[in-house]
C-alpha cells in the first residue's frame, strides 16, 4: 500500500481505535509522513530529552527506528543514557507531533487550528509584532525560551527587536542554588560527588532526576568507594532508599538542619580555621547568628533528632575535606530558598572542601586552564559579536526591585510576565513569544497563566507538540527535534576543559525547522535581517573554531572532546600531576597546591558568608538567618512534588514510549492519614486548596510523612491536543500559589492541600 496522505488516514481511522486525534492539523498523522531516513552509522550528538544534554551516539536502524546510546568518549557519562534519552526516537515520529506551521482559527485555547505555510506564519508574526511595537513599544513583547542554543537565538531576536524582556525557566526551577552561589562565591560552583567520602543530601534526588555524570559519580562513590550518604527528605524516594541514613524531615525545614550543622561545626570546633582565615569574609557575623541554631533547636522545627544532627556533623567533619553537602537543584521549598541554599553552601565552606577532591569546585574552562598550564592545552572558542545592536532603554519587567539583581543572567523572574500582563506591573505587556517552554506546567497558579494568555494581543509558540502552553498561541511554529538539528559547539568544562556538539542524525520529518533558522527568518520578515549575519549553523560553527577546520572535524567526529588532566586548585595530587604534564605551568605554592590562585568574583574577592552587597540589595538578608514560614493552614497537608526517572518536568508526558511507562501520578498518602479519610490505594480523590482543585487517585504508602502528600510533577495536562497526557493525573501547577521568593525570585513549590475521597 502506498502511504500517501489519504490512504494513511483511512488506515489510521480503522487501526487506531479511540485515537480521535489521528488527524490533528499539522501532525505527522495528518501529513502521513512516517518514514525515518538518516545516518545508518553512528553520529555523535547530544540529547535533549532533559536539560543535562548528555553526549549520545545515535543511528537509524532499518529505516524504522533510531538507536540512541551514550557516547563512550565522554567518560564521566559512561556511554549511558536514561530512559528519556533512549526514547528520543519515539518523540521523533510520534504521529501527534506537529510538523507544519499552524494558525489559530477558533477562540484562543479552543483547539481549532489550520495548517499554513512558513511564509504566512512569518507574515502574521511580523505584522502583529510590528503593530504592537509601534503602538506600545518593543518592550511590551516578552520572549521566553528553554535554555541552551535555542535561548541564544530567540534572545538575540528579542534584543534586535528592542525588548529587554527575555526569560528562561530558571525562576521556576534551578535559580535558587545559582543565585545563592553568586552571592557567596561570585559564580556557579560544581560538586565532585564521585570522589566524595561523605555526602549529605537534602532531597536532591539524583537517582530519579537523573543527571548522568552526577548520578554515576554518586553511585560510584557509594558502591565502589564506600562513601556514606545521608538523606533528609519528607518522602522515601529512590535516593532515600539508597542512603545509609534517611530522615523524613518536615517539609520546608531543611534550612534549620543546615544551620544546625553549621552551628555544630563552629561550636564543636570542627571547622577549618585556616581555610576560613584565608578565604572567608563575614565569618564572625555568621558565627554570631548561628550560635542560637543548636541541633535541639533544629529538632523542634524539623523532626530530625538533635543527637543525629550532631553525630552526622561530626562524621562529616571527620571525612572532610573529601566530603560535601549537596546544594540541590530544583525547587523552592519555601520563600526562604535563598537562606536555605546559602546555609548549604556554608556547611561546605566551613569544612574547607572548596577545590578539594570530593568537595566543591569551579569549572575550568580553556582560558583559565591554559593560563595555569602556561601553554595552549585546549583551544578557546570565539563568540560572534554583532555590531551596532539597537540600544534598549526600557527597563525589564522583573527588575523593579533591586533585590533580584543577582538573578538576571540566569533568565529573570519568569512569572512576572503574568503580573505585567494582568496588572500592568510595572507596565503593560501585549505580546509573548515562546520557544520550547511550557509555563502552564512549570510555573505556579495555572489559572493565572490562562488568564494572561487570553488577555495578550498576540502569542507565538515554537514547539514540537501543541503543549498546554502552545495551545493558547495564535501562531504555532513547529521546531525540528534535536535528532534533526545541528547546533553550536558548547562548553561542558568540568575539572578540565571540554566541548561537545549537537548534530543531525535523521532527515527532517515534515515541514519543520531548527529554531535558530526560524528566529533568523522571523528577523528577516521584521526587517532586522542585518543583525543575523551568519548564513547557517556551519558558518556559526566555523566562526566559533576560528576557521580551524580540523578542530571542527574532531569535535564533530567525536561529539565530545576534553583536554588535559583534571585539576582542582587545592588538591596536591592533582596539582602535582598537572605540573608534571606541563613544564611551563605556574609553579605551585609552598604547600604544593595552587591555593594562592583561588579567588572569588565577589566584591571582597573572598567567599562571603555574610554579604554587604546582599544587605544593600535586600535589607536584613546580608547575614544568613532563620525565619519562620507558614507553608500551610492547620487543617491542610503539606503538598510536595518531585521528579521521576522516565519524564522531564512538563515536556515528555506525551512521548509514546514514555507515556506507556508512566502516564499518571498518583498522590502518595501515608496509611494513617489515608485511614482517617477512608482512602485506599487506587481510590479517586479530590485535592484542593485556595489556588485550585485537581482530581487524581491515591497511592497509600508508608514512604511519606503522615502530614505530607506527594506527586511526581508534569502530569494532568488540560489541552486536548496532548492526547496521551491529558486528564491523566494531578496537575501540580494548578495547586501551587503564585508567590515569589525574596532575592532568588523563585516560584514556590510547597503548599497546603486538603483531600477528599470522591
Amino acid at each position, binding site marked *: 500500500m502506498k502511504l500517501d496522505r489519504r490512504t494513511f488516514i483511512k488506515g489510521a481511522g480503522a487501526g487506531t481505535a479511540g485515537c480521535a486525534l489521528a488527524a490533528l492539523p499539522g501532525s505527522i498523522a495528518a501529513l502521513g509522513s512516517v518514514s525515518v531516513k538518516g545516518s545508518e552509522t553512528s553520529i555523535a550528538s547530544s540529547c535533549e530529552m532533559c536539560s543535562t544534554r548528555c553526549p549520545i551516539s545515535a543511528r537509524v*536502524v*532499518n529505516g*524504522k*527506528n*533510531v*538507536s*540512541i*546510546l*551514550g557516547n563512550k568518549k565522554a567518560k564521566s557519562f*559512561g*556511554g*549511558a*543514557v*536514561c*530512559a528519556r*534519552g*533512549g*526514547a528520543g*526516537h519515539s518523540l521523533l515520529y510520534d504521529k501527534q507531533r506537529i510538523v507544519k506551521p499552524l494558525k489559530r482559527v477558533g477562540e484562543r485555547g479552543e483547539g481549532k487550528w489550520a495548517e499554513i505555510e512558513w511564509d504566512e506564519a512569518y507574515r502574521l508574526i511580523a505584522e502583529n509584532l510590528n503593530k504592537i511595537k509601534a503602538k506600545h513599544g518593543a518592550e511590551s513583547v516578552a520572549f521566553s525560551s528553554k535554555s541552551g542554543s535555542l535561548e541564544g537565538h530567540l534572545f538575540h531576536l528579542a534584543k534586535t527587536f528592542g525588548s529587554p524582556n527575555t526569560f528562561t525557566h530558571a525562576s521556576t526551577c534551578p535559580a535558587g542554588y545559582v543565585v545563592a552561589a553568586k552571592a557567596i562565591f561570585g559564580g556557579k560552583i560544581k560538586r565532585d560527588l564521585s570522589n566524595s567520602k561523605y555526602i549529605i543530601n537534602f532531597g536532591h534526588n539524583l*537517582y*530519579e532526576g*537523573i543527571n*548522568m555524570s552526577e*548520578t*554515576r559519580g554518586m*553511585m560510584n562513590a557509594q*558502591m565502589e568507594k564506600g562513601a556514606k550518604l545521608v538523606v533528609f527528605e519528607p518522602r*522515601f524516594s*529512590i535516593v532515600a*532508599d*539508597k542512603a545509609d541514613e*534517611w*530522615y*523524613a524531615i518536615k517539609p520546608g525545614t531543611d534550612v534549620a538542619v543546615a544551620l544546625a550543622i553549621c552551628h555544630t561545626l563552629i561550636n564543636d570546633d570542627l571547622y577549618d580555621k585556616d581555610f576560613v582565615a584565608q578565604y572567608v569574609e563575614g565569618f564572625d557575623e555568621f558565627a554570631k547568628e548561628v550560635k542560637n541554631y543548636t541541633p535541639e533547636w533544629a529538632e523542634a522545627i524539623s523532626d530530625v533528632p538533635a543527637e543525629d544532627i550532631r553525630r552526622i556533623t561530626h562524621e562529616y567533619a571527620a571525612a572532610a575535606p573529601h566530603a560535601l553537602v549537596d546544594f540541590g537543584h530544583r525547587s523552592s521549598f519555601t520563600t526562604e530558598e535563598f537562606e536555605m541554599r546559602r546555609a548549604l553552601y556554608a556547611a561546605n565552606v566551613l569544612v574547607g572542601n572548596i577545590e578539594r577532591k570530593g568537595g566543591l569546585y569551579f569549572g575550568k574552562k580553556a582560558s583559565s586552564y591554559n593560563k595555569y598550564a602556561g601553554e595552549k592545552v585546549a583551544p578557546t572558542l570565539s563568540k560572534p559579536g554583532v555590531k551596532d545592536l539597537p540600544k534598549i532603554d526600557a527597563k525589564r519587567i522583573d527588575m523593579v526591585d533591586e533585590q533580584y539583581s543577582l538573578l538576571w543572567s540566569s533568565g529573570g523572574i519568569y512569572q512576572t510576565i503574568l503580573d505585567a500582563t494582568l496588572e500592568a506591573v510595572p507596565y503593560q505587556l501585549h505580546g509573548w513569544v515562546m520557544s520550547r517552554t511550557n509555563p502552564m506546567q512549570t510555573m505556579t497558579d495555572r489559572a493565572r497563566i490562562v488568564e494572561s494568555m487570553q488577555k495578550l494581543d498576540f502569542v507565538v509558540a515554537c514547539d514540537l507538540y501543541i503543549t498546554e502552553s502552545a495551545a493558547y498561541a495564535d501562531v504555532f511554529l513547529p521546531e525540528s527535534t534535536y535528532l534533526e538539528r545541528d547546533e553550536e559547539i558548547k562548553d561542558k568544562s568540568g575539572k578540565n576543559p571540554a566541548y561537545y556538539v549537537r548534530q543531525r542524525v535523521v532527515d527532517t520529518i515534515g515541514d519543520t525547522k531548527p529554531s535558530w533558522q526560524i528566529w533568523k527568518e522571523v528577523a528577516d520578515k521584521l526587517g532586522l535581517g542585518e543583525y543575523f549575519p551568519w548564513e547557517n549553523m556551519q558558518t556559526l560553527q566555523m566562526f566559533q573554531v576560528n576557521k580551524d577546520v580540523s578542530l571542527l572535524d574532531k569535535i564533530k567526529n567525536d561529539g565530545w572532546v576534553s583536554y588535559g588532566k583534571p585539576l582542582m586548585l587545592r588538591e596536591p595530587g592533582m596539582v602535582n600531576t598537572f605540573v608534571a604534564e606541563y613544564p611551563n605551568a605556574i609553579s605551585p605554592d609552598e604547600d604544593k597546591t595552587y591555593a594562592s590562585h583561588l579567588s572569588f568574583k565577589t566584591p571582597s574577592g573572598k567567599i562571603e558568608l555574610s554579604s554587604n552587597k546582599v544587605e544593600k540589595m535586600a535589607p536584613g538578608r546580608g547575614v544568613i538567618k532563620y525565619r519562620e514560614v507558614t507553608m500551610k493552614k492547620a487543617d491542610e497537608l503539606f503538598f510536595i512534588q518531585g521528579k521521576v*526517572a*522516565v519524564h522531564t518536568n512538563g515536556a515528555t508526558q506525551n512521548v*509514546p*514510549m514514555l507515556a*506507556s*511507562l508512566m502516564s499518571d501520578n498518583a498522590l502518595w498518602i501515608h496509611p494513617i492519614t489515608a485511614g482517617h479519610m477512608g482512602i485506599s490505594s487506587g481510590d479517586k480523590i479530590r485535592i484542593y486548596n485556595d489556588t485550585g482543585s485537581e482530581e487524581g487517585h491515591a497511592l497509600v*504508602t*508508608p*514512604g511519606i510523612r503522615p502530614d505530607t502528600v506527594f506527586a511526581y510533577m508534569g502530569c494532568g495536562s488540560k489541552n486536548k491536543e496532548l492526547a496521551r497526557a491529558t486528564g491523566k493525573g494531578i496537575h501540580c501547577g494548578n495547586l501551587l500559589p503564585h508567590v515569589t521568593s525574596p532575592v532568588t525570585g523563585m516560584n514556590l513549590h510547597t503548599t497546603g492541600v486538603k483531600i477528599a475521597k470522591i
Partner: protein
Amino acid sequence: MTKRYVLVHDENKCIGCQACNVACRSENNVPESVTRIQVRVEGPYGNFPNLHFKYNRVSCEQCEDAPCVKVCPTGAAYVNDDGIVSINEKKCVGCLYCVAACPYKVRFINPETRVPDKCDFCKESRLARGEDPACVSVCPTQALAFGDANDSTSEVSQLLDTKNHYQHKVNLGTKPRVYRIPSRKGGIKV
C-alpha cells in the same frame, strides 16, 4: 557448550530508571504494548523509617533447564550452543505451550510477528556485532554485567565469586542464568 552466558543484576546499584527497558525496545524492535524487560520497583517494605524498595528485574531467566523448551512440540523453542534460549520463528506453530510453561511469566506474543518473544540476550541485534546487550550498555549506574561465566577472568565470574547473590525460584530446578546481588538493606527475598 563452551560458553555460559549469564547476566548479573546488582540491586544495590539499580535505581529502577527503566533505561534498560527503553534501550531494549529500540534495539530489538519491541512493540509498545509488550516488553522483554521491566525493572519493577516494589515496596517500600519494612517499618518506617527502616524502609526499603526491591528492584526486581523481570526478563527471561535463560534457564539452563528451560521448561519452555521442554514443552515445545516443534523445536521452535531451543537452546543454542551459547546456551541462549532462543526462538526459531519459522518452526513456531503458535501453540503457546511455551508461554504457559514459563514459570517466570516472561514470554509474550509479539503483536507484530505473532510469535512468542522474550529476552534473548540481544543475540541477533548486538551480540552478533560483538557488543554487550543493550540493557547492559545503557544502564546509567552499571547495575548490569553480562558475560561468560565459564571464563574465570570475566567480570561476571568475578562478581559471582566475590558477591553474595541469588536466583529466582531455584526450587523449580530451572537453573536460571540471571543472577541477582541483593540490596544490602533488602536482603534476599525470592
